[in-house]
């Protein structure tokens, strides 16, 4: 651990003082330097530093409308794609590198993540928490920015043929937004859908292995570990205007669904516009399927 820290400190540029201060201030840690969920701003900073090259040079992330994200409690709701949560990482990093007052985003992760060694600990230190509604409500009450993917694995596990098409949204996030009076910022992430263009998903194998999906891409598993390197697609993140809803958080699903559809519609619009404004023609655009 100490060696990793030293290597990172040697080979990566520290975050500017104001950025680091802002991150720490917004994190609200206790006497021991952690928050109750395990967020450790110093570890989060190191991780951000180490991934900065990937953010700026590999995926060349560009943000649009990030000023739409209000201060205080907020729910960031993007489309989900790309097999691995690279989109979550890029949105979280944009909130540090592109936002006016940088904040550590609290990502809601799948319930089985805490059982993974190393990854679960790193995720916790960087601000992620188990996707339990009670965690979400408590964090919003602490005025933290929440990152939630209502599509869940339905979105991240979809094949390339369904790119830029939103999958079914759950309703839980909207009930929490109603309960806590939290504005929802719809986000369209363009590009992450192409980082791992899954051709096929072995559903039966996934079931057998108790994992959410087992995709094959043009390079994986064909090229082994090398095939697990994501394609260097340019990623654009479009932040929409915040949506504020009012109503009974315990209303039946069909009432909530109307509001969920509004969020889904806003994200789909951001995606459609984002894809249309993308310059250049990538090889992947030539493949059939998807909305555009």
């Amino acid at each position, binding site marked *: 651990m100490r060696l990793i820290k030293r290597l990172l400190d040697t080979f990566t540029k520290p975050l500017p003082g104001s950025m680091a201060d802002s991150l720490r201030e917004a994190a609200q840690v*206790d*006497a*021991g330097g*952690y928050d109750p*969920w395990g967020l450790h701003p110093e570890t989060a900073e190191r991780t951000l530093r180490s991934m900065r090259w990937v953010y700026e040079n590999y995926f060349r992330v560009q943000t649009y409308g990030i000023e739409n994200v209000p201060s205080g409690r907020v729910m960031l709701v993007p489309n989900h794609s790309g097999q691995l949560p690279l989109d979550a990482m890029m949105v979280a990093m944009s909130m540090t590198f592109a936002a006016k007052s940088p904040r550590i985003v609290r990502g809601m992760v799948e319930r089985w993540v*805490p*059982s993974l*060694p190393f990854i*679960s600990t790193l995720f916790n230190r960087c601000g992620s928490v*188990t996707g339990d509604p009670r965690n979400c409500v408590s964090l919003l009450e602490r005025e933290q920015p929440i990152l939630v993917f209502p599509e869940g694995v339905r979105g991240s596990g979809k094949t390339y043929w369904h790119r830029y098409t939103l999958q079914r949204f759950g309703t839980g996030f909207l009930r929490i937004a109603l309960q806590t009076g939290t504005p929802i910022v719809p986000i369209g992430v363009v590009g992450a859908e192409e980082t791992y263009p899954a051709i096929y998903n072995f559903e039966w194998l996934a079931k057998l292995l108790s994992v959410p999906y087992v995709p094959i891409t043009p390079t994986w598993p064909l090229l082994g570990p090398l095939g697990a390197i994501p394609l260097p697609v340019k990623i654009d993140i479009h932040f929409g205007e915040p949506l504020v809803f009012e109503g009974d958080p315990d209303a039946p699903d069909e009432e909530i669904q109307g509001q969920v559809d509004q969020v889904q519609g806003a994200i789909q619009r951001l995606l459609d516009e984002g894809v249309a404004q993308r310059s250049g023609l990538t090889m992947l655009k030539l493949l059939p399927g998807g909305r555009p």
Partner: protein
Amino acid sequence: MSRTILITGVSGALARVVTELLIPNNEIIGVDVRPLPPERPFEGEFYCARYTQRKMAEIFRRHKPEVVIHLGRIRGTQVASSSYRYNQNVLGTRNLLDLSLKHSAKRVVVLSTYHVYGAHEHNHVGLSEDHPLRASQIFPQLADAVELDHAATSCLWRYRRLETVVLRPCNIVGPSLNNMISRLLRARAVPRLLGYDPMMQMLHERDAARAICLAVDSERWGIYNVAGEGAVPWSKAIKHAGARPAPIPHFMAYPLVGSLSALNLLFPKHLMDYFRYATVISDKAFRNDFGYSPQYDIVDTLRSVGASAAWHA
């Protein structure tokens, strides 16, 4: 106003700290299944008795305690025999509660544990008192602790004439305590699971004792979590205590601890999951209702435990 207070578990260090705080204004009767340790004389009147024995009834008849503080839960780390633990913890607690009712005690404070919630990957942070007690489903070895808690809570709801307070504290540690977690923190090298580093809350023995006294002196009743200030990952807790973490891969740790615990060494295997998944409780209700606020933060607490290690001297 002087009251007669019966405290169980007085051979243990926590009950001693509680006794110290209460003895100036109260008459203290101490009971324990273990004899008193010779190095620590007890200032009140002491009886060595099992909580299930008839002798307990005689103690109640003779002293008519107004307040009963039950700190005498027998831990799996102390006694391996599950039937003995079941007898003392479940039947013994029931006996104490029945006697308290029969002899018109006014108040009972029962010290349960946060272990009753169970260490589980799905636990959210800030478990409140109404969270299901999952421990008996995950670890049948903890059934006695869960049933002790149930015995106290069912008494709380059934008999309003006996004001019952059930406290579920997080890990209580301190320089004078000899429980599993304090002993671990006093070692030179402390095992941790490689790849897992759950958040842990620690309650200083003095804060725990003060919380118990608050529960004794108040007129409120109910079930309350009690935690210290802040939480840190287990590896950091070890470092704050001045020790060195010794990471062990979990696939090796489980069989290793299993075989050691069969020989009555280290700690029971079922407690391993508390070093793997976080069980972070919320004591908001106790703070609101009893005006409790811990005096030691987590770093001070851990340092005080580490400083009491023999190898530091």
